């Protein structure tokens, strides 16, 4: 296990959760390049049914619902509205939605459970990247006056970041290939993964550049997917599990938008969130990092001060499947699953949003 000997500077004081909250269950759809048979409701229904069914509860057992999605993936306003039909919110329920990765919906639900305003929550996220041109869609996340009109695609922006990392002498293209090879191999044991293969890094290095210095393997796949987590506080956490997986720290931070105003080789917002979540107080066994591009794993790993003994992305991570708007939530679910299975005692999950890791979330979990 690693020892966080050099926690990053700028650490904010830790805030301890007041009320214990557990990840009671987790389910996800099988990640695929394109699911053209099911609409969002049909994609979500089995996932939510599994999240409830695996702990033998129903929608009546949760008193808050929160989801994460974005209209721009489907190309129509209010995409979260009809998705709610996958739950069946009758009688009416306390319900909310963030136009963010569902990891932030999980955060919102955790806040209510902390407060005691709810005792159990269903959190879900969904997104189908197959419906439009993701490179064009994600360009609309940028400053609408100075950047979006230029339509810079997200791969090119990520390549700028990767180049900066190489130029700083902190990584090589071979490092990116090694990460991708490990991800593909680990994904072989993940039945929901989209990209899984036993392949060595040297073979991946033979691929052509998509945008130099990024080859195909350093990019995330385009994925249709969905995921759900049930959060439980207090008595319900113990009722629904013999060995609850507890959230011991949870925080998120955002950086400035302009890429020119940021050092793209570091992720200070990840470090701050990690410090606030108490990550550096004890070592972790497993980290699930939301790094859509291979080089971003190195940046986040450093920001989280993870030693080499920490198992990173045993699920294969976002390089194995990147369902936008639920990929971050899945990191939390996968990390919790390692604790539930006994493979890990303490784990950290990370989620990101925006170009070049602009916004980051850190969730620390521990077993009983």
């Amino acid at each position, binding site marked *: 296990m690693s020892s966080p000997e050099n926690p990053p500077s700028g650490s904010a004081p830790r805030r301890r959760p007041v009320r214990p909250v557990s990840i009671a269950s987790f389910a996800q759809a099988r990640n695929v390049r394109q699911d053209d048979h099911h609409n969002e409701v049909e994609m979500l229904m089995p996932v939510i049914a599994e999240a409830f069914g695996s702990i033998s509860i129903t929608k009546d057992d949760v008193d808050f619902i929160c989801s994460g999605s974005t209209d721009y993936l489907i190309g*129509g306003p209010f995409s979260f509205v009809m998705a709610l039909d996958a739950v069946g*919110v*009758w009688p009416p329920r306390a319900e909310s939605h963030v136009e963010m990765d569902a990891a932030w919906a999980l955060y919102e639900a955790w806040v209510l459970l902390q407060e005691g305003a709810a005792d159990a929550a269903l959190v879900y996220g969904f997104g189908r990247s197959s419906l439009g041109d993701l490179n064009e869609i994600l360009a609309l996340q940028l400053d609408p006056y100075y950047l979006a009109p230029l339509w810079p695609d997200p791969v090119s922006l990520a390549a700028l970041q990767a180049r900066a990392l190489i130029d700083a002498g902190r990584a090589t293209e071979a490092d990116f290939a090694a990460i991708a090879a490990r991800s593909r191999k680990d994904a072989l044991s993940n039945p929901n993964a989209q990209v899984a293969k036993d392949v060595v890094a040297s073979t991946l290095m033979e691929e052509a550049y998509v945008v130099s210095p990024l080859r195909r393997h350093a990019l995330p796949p385009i994925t249709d997917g969905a995921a759900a987590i049930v959060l439980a506080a207090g008595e319900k956490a113990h009722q629904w599990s013999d060995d609850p997986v507890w959230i011991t720290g949870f925080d998120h931070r955002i950086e400035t938008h302009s890429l020119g105003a940021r050092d793209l080789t570091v992720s200070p917002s990840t470090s701050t969130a990690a410090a606030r979540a108490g990550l550096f107080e004890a070592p972790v066994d497993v980290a699930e990092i939301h790094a859509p591009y291979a080089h971003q794993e190195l940046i986040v790993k450093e920001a989280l001060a993870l030693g080499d003994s920490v198992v990173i992305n045993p699920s294969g991570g976002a390089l194995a499947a990147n369902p936008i708007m639920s990929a971050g939530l899945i990191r939390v679910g996968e990390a919790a699953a390692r604790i539930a299975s006994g493979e890990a005692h303490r784990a950290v999950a990370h989620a990101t949003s925006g170009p070049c890791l602009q916004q980051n979330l850190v969730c620390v979990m521990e077993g009983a």
Partner: protein
Amino acid sequence: MADEPGGPSTVTEDRGPVTTLATPIRLDFNFTPGVAQSRFLMGLADGKFMGQRCSVCSKVYVPSRGSCPTDGVPTIEDVELANVGTITTYCVVNVPFAGQSIEIPYICAQVLLDGANLSFMGLIQEVPTDQIRMGMRVEAVWVDREELSPSLASVRYFRPNGEADADYETFKEYL
């Protein structure tokens, strides 16, 4: 514009502030109706309304999005519905806007098909706008058989079918 390189810039004429920056955005998307809605659409191609019944509450939805909105379970059982229904409520659209393909004023009504438990919005024609009523019985007018397609465009509009108005009590729970 600078008068000399490196020197202070001098604006020689006041051209006023930039207030607008036009950024044309065009995005194309595939649309996935899903399993349940596909059955509804294929019904339209056959000139009929196909609904689906919830196995929990027995309500019939047309079109079904795949789930019962109140029970959150898949709607699996297909139900063929009548070609006639009742106007539960309506409004007369008199506002012009982009993309409109119908001459204003026109009647936009909630139509509850016989056998269904949910009304949907439909265009009403062949009746003057001042003679439309809540409870009016209407029938669907379809396009010619060879023009039928898996689209609501297969239904040209609804029109009064001459039956006596439905009693308010029979449809008030659908308002």
